[in-house]
């Protein structure tokens, strides 16, 4: 049975559809990614799934409960890591966990018994009595993750869990999320970090303008939607080269700013051509999820 199943979900604000007919299922044990540019409808979809807002139409079943009607019951078994930290600034680390556990109707003794393991998991074992204001951004994020686990949820929802973190802190979060999956938790993650999605997600959907435009594992999406080699070229005369030469060697050529992106099944011919042109600089790499994402959602800014 699916942990979360969403059918024909729609939500508009005025004339503007924000979620425009979305269907997906999350199976137990998956790390499911919901990807999309800013304003694609990711956060609204999460809010709908939690029963915080009512859909215009469509159905949501979360942990076997119909949402929003039985959202309260469904949320008993869910942990949420919001996009922006909303820890209680007046409390210590431990107090934050205790107070949050009470919202689930947990007994004080049960909450206290869970705290040492959660602090250990969050790497905050020696920080139990520290005030929140003195924690670093990475520590706060880890505490927010620990807080989301206070009720031992089956499904953990994360809205851009590593936005604003430095690389070290981000890697720690990734490592913790993999641990959670090993413990059998199901994870729903929204992100616009393609690298994050590629590393963590077993399956993902790409959302844009309120619709899902692609679905699959990171590897199958890359294989289905883009050529395996990418050559990024820039330098004096790149415009002319792109117009006259590039498409001879590459299946697909894209321009963005002063760079040209060449997508090819075989990169050798284009590399040979470029090696003969010292004015052009290039970088050859494998295609990744970001290439798929940019192909499907375009390169224009979304702000």
């Amino acid at each position, binding site marked *: 049975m699916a942990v979360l199943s969403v059918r024909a979900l729609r939500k508009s*604000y005025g004339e503007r559809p924000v979620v425009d007919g979305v269907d997906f299922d999350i199976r137990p044990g998956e790390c499911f990614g919901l990807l999309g540019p800013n304003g694609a409808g990711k956060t609204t979809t999460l809010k709908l799934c*939690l029963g*915080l*807002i*009512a859909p215009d139409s469509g159905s949501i079943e979360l942990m076997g409960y119909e949402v*929003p009607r039985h959202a*309260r*019951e469904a*949320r*008993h078994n*869910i942990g*949420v890591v*919001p996009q*922006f930290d*909303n*820890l*209680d*600034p*007046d*409390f210590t680390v431990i*107090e934050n966990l205790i*107070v*949050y556990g*009470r*919202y*689930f*109707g947990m007994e004080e003794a049960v909450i206290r018994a869970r705290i040492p393991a959660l602090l250990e998991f969050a790497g905050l074992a020696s920080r139990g009595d520290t005030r929140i204001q003195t924690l670093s951004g990475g520590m706060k994020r880890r505490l927010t993750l620990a807080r989301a686990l206070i*009720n031992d949820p089956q499904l953990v929802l994360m809205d851009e869990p590593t936005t604003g973190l430095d690389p070290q802190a981000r890697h720690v979060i990734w490592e913790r999320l993999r641990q959670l999956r090993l413990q059998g938790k199901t994870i729903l993650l929204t992100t616009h970090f393609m690298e994050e999605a590629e590393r963590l997600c077993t399956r993902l959907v790409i959302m844009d303008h309120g619709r899902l435009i692609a679905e699959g594992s990171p590897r199958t999406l890359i294989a289905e939607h883009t050529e395996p080699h990418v050559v990024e070229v820039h330098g004096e005369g790149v415009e002319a080269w792109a117009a006259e030469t590039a498409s001879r060697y590459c299946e697909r050529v894209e321009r963005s700013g002063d760079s040209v992106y060449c997508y090819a099944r075989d990169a050798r011919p284009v590399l040979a051509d470029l090696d003969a042109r010292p004015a052009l600089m290039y970088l050859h790499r494998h295609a990744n999820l970001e290439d798929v994402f940019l192909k499907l959602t375009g390169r224009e800014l979304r702000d």
Partner: protein
Amino acid sequence: MSLAPRLSLRFVPVWRRNFLVWRKLALPSMLGNLADPMIYMLGLGYGLGALLPSVGGVPYIAFLAAGTVCFSTANSATFESLYSAFSRMHVQKTWDAILNAPLTLEDVVLGELIWAASKSFLSGLAIMLVVWALGLAPTAMSLWALAVIPVIGLAFAALGLAITAISPSYDFFMYYFTLFITPMAMLCGVFYPMDALPQAVQWFGQLLPLAHATQLIRPLLFGEWPSHALWHILALLAYAGAGFYVALLLFRRRLLK
């Protein structure tokens, strides 16, 4: 979403959260709550009172004591439901965190309402202790004030929450004080009897929640059962109920979209 509020005991952890924060800052908070009204009560009561014969048949300080109990209860509930609730809702996003747990907006708003009323009860109680210590309310009848104070707190907390629900920033609350709370202090028998005012103004003043509060508390402190006690209590409860309901609808419109 249905328009009827679904109330439950789930508000208790919200109340306890606020209580835990308050406990950490209890001493300065209590002193702050107490000092200001006390300075007014004693300063005006004895200073201005020395110039006055008697007001409403009692020394001015005794008259003012009842007004101070009402006004500081109302003020305390108002401050908590405006500034503190706003920072929890809008600045700290504490409500967002709670709403991700199995609590509803009803639980959160009810928790805030009862919390603000609880805190205002402490303010009212603190003033009452001074009033008793100064011998300004010598009979056992004055103990009934402790039952009325929470109702005053509920009414003002509910009204404050409705304002918080539409407030874009802290600055907005200034309007509420300038246009509602401060004029009310002048119209509702806090500093002087309402019958000192023109008839039309009195009628208007009678509609305001603080007038119901003073008309309950003052006789109780003087050792008399208030006339129309039930009417005044029901009026305060109506303010509390209507304020809460409107606040809830406005918070829903603001937060659940």
